[in-house]
């Protein structure tokens, strides 16, 4: 049996890891996006007292490595009697970490949004929440889509860190196959190919979103 046939025999393991990575990635980036939008909305203004803690949250996350946050949630929280299993600790850490980055990206493009629109919206009787949801958020997301896409690729790569806190994801699959059959080269080539595939798909999707944005006139601001 050649090495590639062994890999094919172990396809179930790779598939399981790949699906697990995709589920973790989808769940955590969705949560991170919501956190990012939520933080941006709170920064929007109605509660000035929240501004400082939110800035601290964003800046702290930007200065920490992702793995330290995962360690904090996985090894640190049991001190307070909260025991998460590795999977949920990983998803939570990814969401909290990348939520701060999404918030920072959206905030960056919020600063450059012309203030006239907001004033016009208020003059038309929009409440802050409706204006945020209908006018500001769609524009910010479409404007900052290259950066958001970049952040998605970084989030995908950060899922691999979870192998260190014993989550059974794609890198774990490669590691266990190479440990069982002593064929590290083929196992890791397959896995790196999977990561590559996902990030290429995401790049294409971001480009398509750009086309959609041009059609809907998001570029003529």
């Amino acid at each position, binding site marked *: 049996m050649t090495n590639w046939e062994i890999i094919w025999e172990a396809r179930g393991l790779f598939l399981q890891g790949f699906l697990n990575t995709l589920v973790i990635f989808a769940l955590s980036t969705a949560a991170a996006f919501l956190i990012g939008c939520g933080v941006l909305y709170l920064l929007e203004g109605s509660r000035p007292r929240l501004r400082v803690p939110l800035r601290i949250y964003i800046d702290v996350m930007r200065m920490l490595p992702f793995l330290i946050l995962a360690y904090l949630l996985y*090894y640190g929280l049991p001190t307070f009697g909260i025991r998460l299993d590795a999977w949920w600790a990983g998803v939570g850490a990814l969401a909290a970490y990348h939520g701060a980055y999404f918030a920072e990206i959206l905030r960056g493009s919020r600063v450059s949004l012309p203030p006239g629109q907001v004033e016009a919206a208020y003059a038309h009787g929009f409440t802050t929440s409706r204006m945020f949801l209908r006018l500001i958020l769609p524009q910010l997301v479409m404007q900052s889509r290259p950066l958001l896409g970049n952040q998605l690729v970084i989030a995908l790569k950060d899922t691999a860190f979870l192998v260190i806190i014993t989550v059974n994801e794609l890198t774990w699959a490669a590691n266990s196959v190479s440990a069982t059959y002593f064929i590290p080269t083929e196992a890791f080539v397959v896995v790196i190919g999977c990561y590559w595939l996902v990030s290429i798909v995401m790049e294409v999707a971001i480009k398509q979103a750009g086309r959609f944005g041009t059609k809907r006139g998001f570029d003529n601001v």
Partner: protein
Amino acid sequence: MDANAWSMLLEGAWTTLWISAVSIAIGVTAGLAIALIRLARLPVIEQLLVTYISLARATPLVTLTLFIFLTLPTFGINMDRSVAGIMALTLNTTAFNAEIWRAAFQNFSRDQREAALACGMTPTVCFRRIMLPQMVITSLPGLVNEMSFLIKGSPAIAVIGIVDLTRVTNRISAVTYEPLPPILAAAALYMAIIGCLVWTQRIAERKANRLAM
């Protein structure tokens, strides 16, 4: 946490720092070299480099580190853990740095280049005396940003057993049974290191804007 734990933490921080510093130093120069080679547009090499950059940007650091550490011995190349870690970090950061340098090349003003050539400088002299000093300044913010990304990604080398600043927290908590204090201390040390880099980046950006060409 006692003095012993702190000295272990500082040792871990030192490991993280020197491995990252070596990878940054190699990565920045190799990135420049790759950007220069890509300018020449050599037929086969160009495609190879594009594939390398695309692959290296999509591969997670943990996967790359494990790949290098486990694969090279099967080809008969035995290496130290830290060399494998440095190789993984370098391969990753070089791809990003190459893109930063290439952007700096593409944005370099043609007028200056043409003026330099018209004054009789050879392309090499023009590159060394005119282009490189300005390109270093304009791409410094991007490069420093990439450096802080590298340090944020450096815990990946813990996966092959290098005792870096992240891994050392496990060692300490294995003795004290209190995982929280060492992790928080490590977080503070990381924040100090990356905070310094962010601060340099801010200064670099200000300098770059002042010298804006």
